[in-house]
C-alpha cells in the first residue's frame, strides 16, 4: 500500500518533469517556425538589385529597399550618437553616486522609462520635435529611438561599473589622477565589455522599433539623406508594405524582414560572443 503511494508520487514527479521539458522546448518552436518561414520567404528576394534599388510603384515588379536600408542606418547612427555618450555618462553618475538624492530620482526615472511603451515615446517625440519643426523628420525619429536606447545603456553601464572593486578607483586616485581620468581611463576600460554589450543590445533593440517612427520619421518612398525630412526605415517599410494589399509589396516586405531579422539576430549573437572576449580579467 505504502509502496504504491510512493510509486504514485514518483510517477507524478516524473510526469511533471516530462511536462516541464515539453513546455520549455515548445517555447522555441514558434521562433524556429518564424525564422524558417521568413528566411524561406525572404532570402530568395534578396539580391544585389534588391539592396541597391528603390521600391517600384504598384504594378511594376522588381524594385528594392535601398532607401529603407540607408534610412535605417542613418536613423540608428544619429540615435546612437545622441544616446551612447549620454547613457554612459548617466550610468557613470549612478555608479559613482550610489546614495545621492539625485541618483535615487534619476534611477527611478530610468526604471520608469524602461517600461514606457514605445508608441508613447513616439507621441512625445512628435510634440517635442515634429510639431515645432513643422514636419516629420528623420531627426525626430532618431531622438525617439535614442530615448528608447537610454535605459538599456544606463542600466548596463551602472550594473557593470558597480561590480568593479573599489581598489581599482583607489589605485587611480592614489596615483594623483583626477576624477575624470580615474573614470575614463581606469573604470570605464575595465568595464568595457559590459558597457559595450549594453550599447549593442540597445542598438539591436531599436533596429526593429517601428512604433516610435510612425509619427516621427514617417517613411519616405524615395532616397533621402536629409535629417530634417521624412526618411524611410526598414521596420516602417515592412509595416507599410505588409499591410498593403499588393503582392509585389509583400515580396519586398519579406525581403526586408529577412534582412532586418538577420541584422538583429546577428547583433544579439555577436554581442553574446564578443562580450566574453572583451571581458577584462580582474
Amino acid at each position: 500500500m505504502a509502496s504504491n503511494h510512493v510509486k504514485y508520487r514518483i510517477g507524478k514527479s516524473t510526469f511533471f518533469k516530462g511536462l516541464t521539458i515539453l513546455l520549455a522546448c515548445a517555447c522555441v518552436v514558434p521562433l524556429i517556425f518564424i525564422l524558417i518561414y521568413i528566411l524561406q520567404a525572404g532570402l530568395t528576394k534578396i539580391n544585389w538589385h534588391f539592396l541597391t534599388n528603390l521600391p517600384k510603384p504598384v504594378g511594376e515588379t522588381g524594385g528594392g529597399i535601398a532607401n529603407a536600408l540607408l534610412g535605417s542606418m542613418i536613423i540608428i547612427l544619429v540615435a546612437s550618437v545622441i544616446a551612447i555618450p549620454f547613457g554612459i555618462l548617466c550610468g557613470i553618475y549612478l555608479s559613482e553616486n550610489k546614495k545621492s538624492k539625485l541618483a535615487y530620482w534619476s534611477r527611478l526615472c530610468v526604471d520608469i522609462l524602461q517600461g514606457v511603451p514605445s508608441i508613447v515615446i513616439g507621441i512625445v517625440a512628435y510634440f517635442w520635435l515634429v510639431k515645432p519643426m513643422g514636419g516629420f523628420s528623420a531627426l525626430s525619429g532618431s531622438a525617439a529611438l535614442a530615448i528608447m536606447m537610454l535605459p538599456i545603456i544606463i542600466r548596463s553601464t551602472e550594473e557593470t561599473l558597480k561590480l568593479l572593486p573599489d581598489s581599482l578607483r583607489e589605485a587611480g586616485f592614489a596615483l594623483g589622477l583626477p576624477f575624470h581620468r580615474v573614470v575614463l581611463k581606469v573604470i570605464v576600460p575595465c568595464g568595457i565589455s559590459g558597457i559595450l554589450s549594453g550599447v549593442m543590445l540597445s542598438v539591436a533593440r531599436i533596429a526593429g522599433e517601428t512604433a516610435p517612427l510612425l509619427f516621427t520619421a514617417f517613411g519616405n518612398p524615395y532616397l533621402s539623406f536629409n535629417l530634417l525630412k521624412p526618411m524611410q526605415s526598414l521596420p516602417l517599410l515592412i509595416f507599410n508594405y505588409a499591410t498593403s494589399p499588393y503582392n509585389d509589396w509583400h515580396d519586398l516586405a519579406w525581403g526586408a524582414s529577412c534582412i532586418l531579422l538577420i541584422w538583429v539576430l546577428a547583433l544579439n549573437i555577436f554581442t553574446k560572443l564578443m562580450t566574453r572576449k572583451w571581458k577584462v580579467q580582474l
Partner: protein
Amino acid sequence: MESSVDTNLATRPNDNLGRVVSLKPEGTVSTTKRIKRSFRQIRAEKVFRRTLIIVALVMVALVLGIMLTLVYESTLSIKSSGIGYLWGKTWDPVRDIFGAYPFILGTLLTSFLALFISIPFSFAVAVFLGEYYPEGWFSNLLKNTVELIAAVPSVIYGFWALAVLVPIVRSFESKIGVEPVGLGIFSSALILAVMIIPYAASLGRSMIHMVPSNLKEAAYSLGATRWEVIRAVIFPYTKSGLFAGVLLSLGRALGETMAVTMVIGNTSLIPKSIFAPGNTMASVIANEFTEADHPVYLSALIELGLVLFLVTVVINMIGKKMVSRFTNE
C-alpha cells in the same frame, strides 16, 4: 621627468644585489610641467563632475517632460470628456464622441489572454533552467534561444502572424462555428503570448536559482520527490519573484503596438467575443494618430497614451519593487 635619473642610468652606483640605487631628482623640469598640467586637470575634473550631474538631471527632466507633455496635450480631451472618457462605449471621431472603453477592454482582453497562454511556458522554461538543468550546452542553447524571442522585432512577428497565424486561426474559427475573420483579439493574443514568454521566463529562472540549496535539501531529506520540492519549496519561496515576472510580461503586453496593430482587425466597436476584431489602446494610437484632423480627436488619442503610460509604469514599478525586495531578502 627624471632627466637626472635617465642620464645617470649607466653610471648609477649598483649595490651588490644588482639593484640600482638612484638619487632622487629634486625639482626637475618636468615635475613643474607635471604640476602645470595638473592645474588643467583640476579644471577638467570640475567640468566632468558638473557634466555628470547635468546628465543625471536631464534624465529626470526627460521623464518628467514625457509625463507633463502627455498630461498637457490631453487636457483638451480631459476637459471635454471628463472622467467618463474611460467607460464611454462609443468612439466616433466624426461626431466628436470619444469613449475609451472599447480599447481598454481590447487591451485587457489581449494582454490577459496572452498572459494566460504564455505563463505555463514561461514557468516551464524557468523551472527547466533554474531547477532541472541549470547547466549544460542544451540549457545554454535553450536560454539563449528564449532570449532571442525577445530580440525579434515586433513588426516581424506581426507580419508573420498576418501571413501564417491569421489563416490558421481563420480555419479554426470556421471549424468551431464563429465568424471566420482571422484578424482579431484571439490572433493578437496568440502572437503576443509568444512575444512575452522571455520576460517572465528569465526573471523566474534567476529567482529559482536563488533558492538556498539547504531548503531544498531539507525537503529531500524528508523524502520529498523532485516535483514536491518544486511545488512545496521552490514555488512558495519564489512566488513574489515569479509574480513580478508575470507583471513585467504584462507590462510588455499592454504596451506592445506593432504586432497587435497588424492582426487585431482595427475596429472601434466593442469586441463581442475573443474572436472578434477590436483595437487596443496602442493600436488605435498607431492607426489614427496621423489621421487625427482636429484638436479634440488628437487630444483624445493622447489621453489614451497617457492612460497607457500610467498603467504600464505602475505595473512595471510594482514588478521592480517586488524583484528588489526579493533579491534583498
